[in-house]
């Protein structure tokens, strides 16, 4: 550092430069947020206003406030570090400057070069970012990015060299090299070596919203999911499997407990934890057997399964109410560029490997983290859920427009495109499991948690006898919004036994009526586990051949709460928040939870149905008739007009028995029809 009068001036100038840089970077962020608002047509404040307008008296909690404060402090510190880097980069240029005006111009040039580099890199790595407007220009090309990076890095190192002694500078460079080399050399692929060879790995893979009819085994011919199709072509596939309730948390709770929602208590996403049975016998038993139990999910807005449910570890973004706010305001270049670095897990726990922030989500990074978390010597129980196929269908990269797939249905078009992406993710995940030896002895289940409906013509239910309009809606958008829309309830379920990396169970499509609750009893049977005396499963052991199928089996489904703002072709997040925010409270932990009083009220509004062979019988609280649906020919009937031979009495009896005592069930006294029909 210079100690003459000129040097003293330079020191003063550096401090001033730092403050000026900070001020300019703050202005830069404000401009970007405003630009984003112009493009998107809605402001950040209107989004927050939508939450606060819900008159939720407990919308703020210590946990939520802490999460938001942490996020903004990290953002501020990062910009402060950036400002220091810019200021240091100006130092060598200031030594060349003849007067203050030129110094200011050097400074402004360096700041603008840094901003340009950041925007260009953001556009290159995250082209779907709302502030990625440089994406179609030469400035987001690699040669420009590398050139500008080298220039600015050179200026920074020169500035650092002038600031530090020669020895300190050398030490800094050496440390930086060691850290980078250490990180790069740590990227090795470990191999699984089982200590206990009697215990296979148990792997349950869930794909959010995957519809069976979009896969080859159900006749889809457009080859949207070659990797999934390949897996299913070697597995035992259970055709006509239904989700107990078409919401992720409830479906997974049903799967992991082997019980219907009425039994385990999780009737909605974000159900109050104190009203839910967290007893998961499989997790408990496998923990006792020395398994490492892992639950992994790349979006946790609606699914709060965590270590309190018995798992050893949870992989995925942090769960909490701050997720919704942070993912909506985070599309800024500095955040985007840091989000896929290892330090992001600490800096941005709500954004790291979070599919809900789709613009920066890299599926292979989630896969990598899940695989890295698995034990390489103990057997693993892994339940992993991939969420890319869920609304809002955002993606880090553009996808080639396909006029063949375009039918004017926006959601369905995007859904089909995202199937390709989640299919790649699944294929890569299976390959990596195999490479690491985790499939040398493994039981693998592939499931989807629910379907999705897009009001496709082919999905519409018909009724030849009803003339004119009926008050019954036979179509809906989304999932768990209408229990008689079959595409919402039907899911994928397949089983495969792996030995030495290859599936050994013979492929077969088993025709029957199955439910996700069947997986737990099947695993208990295969792993030779036993329930405690006071425990039981609602599910049944899955058959391995068609001859073993129980033809008397009935399975039950129910809907979620009615939300008009999601039953639409264009979901507006503000409207959803506005309609639903008052239903939830934010607990001290920072998590949003349904208010217990409302939770019980909403159970009354549930639609409930039973499946038996090709038939569905539904009881809808807002419709006076029982509805009978033939799922084969897509015909629906008001039960009072029905003249056919469907075994509706048996179905109604089972539906009434299953839901007996449930809040609001059968307020129209339809269960009496069973007794009347017996008397007649």
């Amino acid at each position, binding site marked *: 550092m210079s100690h003459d009068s000129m040097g003293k001036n330079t020191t003063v100038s550096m401090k001033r430069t730092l403050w000026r840089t900070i001020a300019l970077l703050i202005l830069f962020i404000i401009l970007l947020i405003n630009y984003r608002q112009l*493009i*998107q047509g809605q402001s950040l404040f209107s989004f927050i206003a939508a939450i606060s307008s819900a008159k939720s008296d407990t919308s703020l909690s210590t946990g939520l406030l802490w999460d938001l404060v942490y996020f903004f402090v990290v953002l501020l510190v990062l910009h402060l570090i950036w400002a220091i880097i810019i200021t240091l980069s100006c130092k060598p240029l200031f030594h060349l400057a003849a007067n203050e005006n030129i110094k200011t111009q050097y400074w402004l040039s360096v700041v603008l070069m840094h901003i340009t580099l950041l925007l260009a890199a953001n556009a290159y790595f995250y082209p779907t970012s709302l502030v990625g407007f440089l994406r179609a220009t030469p400035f987001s090309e690699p040669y420009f990015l590398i050139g500008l990076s080298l220039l600015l890095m050179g200026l920074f190192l020169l500035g650092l060299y002038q600031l530090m002694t020669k020895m300190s500078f050398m030490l800094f460079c050496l440390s930086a090299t060691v850290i980078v080399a250490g990180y790069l050399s740590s990227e090795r692929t470990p191999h699984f070596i089982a200590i206990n060879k009697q215990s296979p790995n148990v792997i349950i893979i869930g794909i959010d919203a995957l519809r069976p009819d979009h896969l080859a085994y159900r006749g889809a011919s457009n080859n949207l999911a070659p990797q999934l199709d390949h897996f299913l072509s070697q597995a035992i596939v259970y055709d006509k499997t239904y989700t107990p309730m078409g919401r992720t948390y409830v479906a997974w709770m049903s799967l992991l407990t082997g019980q219907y929602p009425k039994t385990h208590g999780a009737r909605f996403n974000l159900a109050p934890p104190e009203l839910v049975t967290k007893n998961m016998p499989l997790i408990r038993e496998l923990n006792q057997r020395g398994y490492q139990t892992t639950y992994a999910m790349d979006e946790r807005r609606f699914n709060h399964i965590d270590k309190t449910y018995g798992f050893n570890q949870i992989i995925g973004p942090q769960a909490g109410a701050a997720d919704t706010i942070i993912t909506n305001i985070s599309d800024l270049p500095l955040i985007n560029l840091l989000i896929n670095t290892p330090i992001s897990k600490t800096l941005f726990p709500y954004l790291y490997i979070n599919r809900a922030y789709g613009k920066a989500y890299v599926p292979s990074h989630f896969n990598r983290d899940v695989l890295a978390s698995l034990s390489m010597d103990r057997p693993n129980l892994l339940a992993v859920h991939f969420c890319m196929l869920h609304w809002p269908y955002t993606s880090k990269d553009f996808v080639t427009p396909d006029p063949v797939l375009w039918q004017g249905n926006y959601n369905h078009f995007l859904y089909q495109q995202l199937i390709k992406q989640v299919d790649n993710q699944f294929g890569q995940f299976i390959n990596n499991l195999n490479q690491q030896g985790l499939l040398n002895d493994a039981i693998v289940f592939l499931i989807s948690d629910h379907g999705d409906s897009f009001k496709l013509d082919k999905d519409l239910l018909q009724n030849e006898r009803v003339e004119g309009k009926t008050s019954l809606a036979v179509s809906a958008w989304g999932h768990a919004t209408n229990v008689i829309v079959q595409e919402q309830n039907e899911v994928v379920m397949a089983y495969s036994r792996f030995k030495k990396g290859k599936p050994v169970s013979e492929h077969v499509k088993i025709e029957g009526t199955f439910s996700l609750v069947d997986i737990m009893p099947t695993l208990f049977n295969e792993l030779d586990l036993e329930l405690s005396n006071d425990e039981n499963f609602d599910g049944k052991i899955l058959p391995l051949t068609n001859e073993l199928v129980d033809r008397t089996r009935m399975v039950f489904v129910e809907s979620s709460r009615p939300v008009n703002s999601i039953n639409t072709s264009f979901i507006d997040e503000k409207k959803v928040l506005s309609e639903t925010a008052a239903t939830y409270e934010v607990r001290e932990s920072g998590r949003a939870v349904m208010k217990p009083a409302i939770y019980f009220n909403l159970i009354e509004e549930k639609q409930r149905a039973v499946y038996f062979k090709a038939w569905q019988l539904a009881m809808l609280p*807002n419709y006076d008739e029982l509805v009978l649906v033939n799922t084969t020919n897509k015909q629906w009937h008001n039960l009072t007009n029905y003249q056919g031979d469907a075994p509706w009495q048996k179905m109604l009896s089972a539906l009434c028995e299953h839901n007996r005592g449930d809040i609001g069930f059968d307020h129209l006294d339809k269960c009496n029809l069973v007794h009347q029909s017996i008397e007649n």
Partner: protein
Amino acid sequence: MVIKISPFFIQWLLTILILLLLTINIVPAWHNYQEKIALTSEITSESSLAEHYISRGGWPASKDNNSAIVHYQQYLIKTDKTDKTDKTDKRLPTQQ
């Protein structure tokens, strides 16, 4: 031999560089905004894929592969007349 450059000349060069850097960023941003204005329809459900690409930044095409933008009228979204976006609408999903 040291070439001495006039401070005035350096100032001019730096002014040009600053203007250039501003232009590099402002022109594409403005162009992007103009595209958004041109493609924005009043009713969301009668918009096009291109509008969603511009305004949501998530889909469907890059400008390198811009058929959905150039031929945006081939990618119009069909209206769903049963959409219930009004939160005062108290009908349930099973009601028409």
